[in-house]
């Protein structure tokens, strides 16, 4: 076949070619991409729409009370017990996750040899990949009985055990995000400190951590957001008691556990109890979204520094 023939065929084909794909594809992909935005608006819309129904029937004073008894003859919807339960489990989780996660991050990024890191990082990844239901089972059937030996007054359902296990679950997240932040510190700064005779510890505390503090803080904020939204561990191990108490050996309900209890129970559509789900969901959503936005804001600031 001659060159001219090929050229002729190809030029004919190009002339015939409709520019359909060039016109349609960008619109098609834009449409598909916008679906994710629609989902978000769907979430916000359903939450707000049904929350309004709740707040129009329940006085705001009642919402901020400590009396939560949605299924009693005279239901009361005070959310403070839920906020309290969420708050306490989150604090316990952070008390575990932040020190251990940070220490692991420092160890991995500053002290561990590359070979050791190759072993340790996958372990953390495995820990991060375990489904939360497994942690829930672990908290309920292992950690709680173990803690009972130390604290005899501990209830079979309590806040302490799921808090600790949730903290363990979040360790990999804090560790890997903080490690990323520490690794982002320019080597030249580290070398500067070491060159002046600082030990690794001094370099870490005086140079690395101050330089990566915003990334570290962002990782902690994200961890808090994760703890607030965590569902299965607390549903299984901290139970559904709606008491307002600060005794962490007792059962309490978190916002997430409330949602699970109510939907898997038989709250009929249209009742105040049903709408209370959405009100709790909205509070949860606002909390986690807020945390996430704060974390993004902090993280963006630290990216600009170098």
């Amino acid at each position, binding site marked *: *076949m001659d*060159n001219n023939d090929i050229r002729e065929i*190809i*030029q004919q084909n*190009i002339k015939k*070619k409709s520019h359909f794909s060039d016109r349609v594809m960008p619109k098609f992909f834009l449409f598909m991409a916008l679906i994710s935005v629609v989902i978000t608006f769907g979430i916000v819309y359903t939450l707000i729409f049904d929350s309004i129904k709740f707040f129009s029937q329940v006085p705001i004073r009642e919402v901020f009370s400590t009396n939560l008894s949605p299924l009693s003859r005279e239901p009361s919807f005070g959310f403070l017990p839920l906020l309290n339960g969420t708050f306490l489990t989150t604090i316990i989780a952070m008390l575990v996750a932040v020190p251990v996660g940070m220490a692991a991050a420092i160890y991995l990024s500053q002290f561990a040899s590359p070979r050791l890191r190759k072993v340790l990082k996958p372990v953390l990844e495995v820990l991060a990949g375990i489904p939360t239901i497994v942690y829930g089972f672990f908290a309920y059937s292992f950690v709680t009985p173990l803690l009972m030996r130390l604290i005899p007054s501990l209830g079979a359902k309590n806040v302490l055990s799921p808090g600790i296990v949730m903290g363990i679950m979040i360790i990999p997240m804090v560790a890997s995000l903080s490690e990323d932040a520490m690794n982002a510190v320019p080597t030249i700064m580290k070398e500067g400190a070491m060159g002046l005779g600082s030990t690794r510890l001094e370099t870490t505390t005086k140079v690395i951590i101050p330089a990566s503090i915003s990334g570290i803080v962002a990782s902690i904020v994200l961890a808090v957001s994760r703890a607030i939204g965590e569902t299965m561990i607390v549903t299984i191990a901290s139970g559904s008691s709606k008491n307002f108490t600060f005794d962490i050996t007792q059962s309490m309900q978190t916002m997430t556990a409330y949602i699970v209890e109510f939907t898997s129970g038989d709250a009929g559509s249209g009742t105040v109890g049903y709408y209370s789900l959405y009100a709790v969901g909205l509070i949860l959503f606002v909390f986690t979204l807020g945390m996430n936005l704060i974390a993004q804001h902090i993280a963006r600031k630290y990216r600009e520094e170098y």
Partner: protein
Amino acid sequence: MIDIDQYITKYVYDVKGLNLWYGDNQALKDINMHVMENEITAIIGPSGCGKSTFVKTLNRMIENVPIVKTEGEILYNGRNIFSSKMKVEELRTRVGMVFQKPNPFPKSIYENVVYGPKIHGVKDKKTLMEIAEQSLRGAALWDEVKDRLNDNAYGLSGGQQQRLCIARTMAVSPEVILMDEPTSALDPVATMRIEELMEDLKKEYTVIIVTHNMQQAARISDKTAFFLSGELIEFDKTNKIFANPSDKRTEDYITGRFG
């Protein structure tokens, strides 16, 4: 009947008053030059002089940079390449391009060569095979790869990869082949093979080659254009440019006083 084309000088490219900006930065300043059929035109100049920008403008590849603005005309066989009637697909099949770094697709050797014909609607297996053989022979690669057409192209050496890219370009039967420093990533032996190949290419195609290597320009080209800071300083027969440049700056560059 008289073929008029025989009697008029045929310009493949006729560049008239071309200006080009990257944002506010003017990269080409009032370029006027022409390219003759079946000649090798070399474009030389220090790095950053706009020579690469210039060849990428000739097949409108430069438009992939979003902030580029052009002004002036480039006539390709008498048709303005910037006019709306000129489809960019047509221009780029008529004007093929070989890049600085060999850039075969991570597919088989065969699939690389027939990529162009395939996307432009040639479906017949026999025709495609014919095109593949012809192009690979044209790029002096056939004997080396004929037994392993289905192997991945990345198994080839750098020089072979670059000849494969030349074959791929030839597969759509272009009229012009643009080469943007095609040997700068290759060793001397591979470079020599490609330079030998250029002699043959010239019979079928018009070749425009950007090179930072003055010896290369002197060895292979018929005409040479010298660019400096976005301006076309001198454009003449290669012999003339290297033996007796008319501009002081050309002479300085060729004798190695800068660049």
